[in-house]
């Protein structure tokens, strides 16, 4: 991750602030920074979203393609996550520099979405063993301002919620061969249910306390963090530690609790915002002219 240089005095300042539940930008330990969200930003993708979490900027595009189901789940569609850490974000990502971080993010997302209750992949299946929807979720990191995982997860959830897949009907022709018919009306489309999809909450251990949504400065004071993928009803679909330090078992339990609190709240806020966005964009075909 992008490293920044800080003096010992700055570190102490941040550390003491967190101990008193006042962080350097005035937030409490479990508060998020302001989040900006836009959906349907890329017209060529089936679904897209852009999230700006203070200085972290993430753009996500979802493209649906038809492919073969994987062998162990012949009736299900699948999701493929790709993360591109652009060198625009920080020069450290140039060349192969961002590869490890990209892999860490994409595998965390793949694990978070790999559970039947949070995303119904069976609805993405078309013909058993033959055809299914493969959703390519491409994540582009434009700016790195701390807490990338959370920003990425919000953007992915919003982009999936925004995804419109054309309706496909399977028919048999006279030679008994299966045929796929794709609806050519752009408004005749299927949506993906994302109500139970998870958001990732990163809890960073700074001193004896833990905080959510660490800024770049706070991240450099923290030795170990716990990332939990939380759904709206408070269950955890994936979790993982990261960083060079270790954690006390008791503090992990505390972190799980605050992860649940922050995660459910984040999910609720996101759903409300997505609904608002949906109304603004509209799902109905606008009638124009006399002949339609």
């Amino acid at each position, binding site marked *: 991750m992008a490293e920044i240089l800080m003096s010992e005095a700055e570190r102490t300042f941040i550390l003491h602030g967190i101990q008193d539940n006042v962080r350097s930008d005035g937030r409490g330990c479990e508060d998020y920074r302001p989040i900006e969200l836009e959906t349907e930003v890329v017209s060529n993708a089936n679904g897209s979203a852009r999230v700006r979490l203070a200085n972290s900027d993430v753009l996500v595009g979802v493209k649906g393609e038809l492919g073969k189901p994987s*062998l*162990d*789940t012949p*009736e299900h569609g699948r999701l493929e996550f790709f993360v591109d850490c652009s060198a625009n974000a920080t020069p450290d990502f140039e060349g192969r520099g961002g590869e*490890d971080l990209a*892999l*860490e993010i*994409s*595998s965390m997302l793949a*694990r978070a979405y*790999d*559970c*039947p*209750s*949070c995303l119904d992949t069976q609805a993405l299946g078309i013909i058993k063993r033959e055809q299914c929807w493969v959703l390519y979720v491409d994540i582009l990191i434009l700016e790195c301002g701390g807490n990338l995982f959370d920003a990425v997860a919000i953007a992915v959830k919003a982009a999936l919620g925004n995804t419109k897949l054309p309706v496909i009907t399977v028919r048999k022709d006279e030679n008994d061969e299966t045929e796929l018919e794709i609806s050519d009306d752009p408004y005749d489309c299927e949506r993906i249910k994302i109500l139970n999809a998870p958001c990732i909450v990163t809890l960073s251990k700074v001193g004896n306390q833990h905080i959510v949504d660490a800024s770049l400065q706070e991240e450099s004071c923290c030795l*170990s963090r*716990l990332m939990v993928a939380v*759904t709206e009803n*408070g*269950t*955890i*679909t*994936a*979790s*993982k*530690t*990261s*960083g*060079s*330090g*270790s*954690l*006390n*078992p008791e503090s*992990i*339990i505390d972190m*799980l*609790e605050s992860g*649940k609190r922050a995660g459910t709240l984040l999910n609720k806020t996101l759903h409300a915002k997505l609904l608002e966005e949906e109304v603004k964009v509209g799902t109905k075909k606008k009638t124009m002219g006399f002949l339609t």
Partner: protein
Amino acid sequence: MPVDNRRLWTPEETIPPEFITKYRPTTELVNQNGKRRDGREANQHRPTYLKAGAISQAKGSAYIEMADTKVIAAVYGPREVMKREDFTMSGQVKCVFKFATFSCKTRQKHIEDDREKELSMTILEALKPAIRLDKFPKARLEIFITVLQDGGSALAAAITCGSVAVADAGMEMYDVVIGCSLRQIGERSLIDPTTDEESHRSLSQSDEKSNETSQAMMTVALMPSINQVSSIIQKGELSIDGAKQALKQCLDTARKLHPVIKQCLNKAVEAKLKR
């Protein structure tokens, strides 16, 4: 995908026959008496054999066998870092985790895939907090871990094996690291799952009931003497209380394995002194 041209060519697409056969194990994972298919209790770890110093040329090495899971690890270095831009004042650790091509039910590729890369990173994160990096500045320690046979809980075995190998290499450490896995299927939590238990979801896909119950897998790395958790990795849905419970069970089992590691390291040191 990069293609490896130097090795023997196989057909471009092959399917392991297990995916075509209709065979499904008929016995339940846990029978009425609460015993698992291999006769264990739900919270019982498989019998574990651990040996330090399995590879004579390496600085340190270890071999672990948990029934059908067999993992070998070797440690080389610390060696000088040659590239100037990689220079750091604290020591560096590199970890390469590999499934042998024949180790799993489906054949593994020679080239490291994303799953192996992620597991390498997880193992590195689990081992690094235990190693005193300040003792070998400007140098890099290399850990190579190969799974010879995957009979379930390979990650947990690899973490334990890797830490014993590092200790065997005589590196200064704060503590050894012990890995332990747990598989949650509905209300049942099974410690140290076998491959059957790990892949239970894909076996019973057809019955609809299994979709409703929670299915999760958690692996925890513990440093027992200083009571610190160096890594957790979990997938699958768990409630908060379920996650806490799973964490506690993993930690308890890991603590039980501590004497095995102590004894193994003692033996290795004795053998070295005799030489």
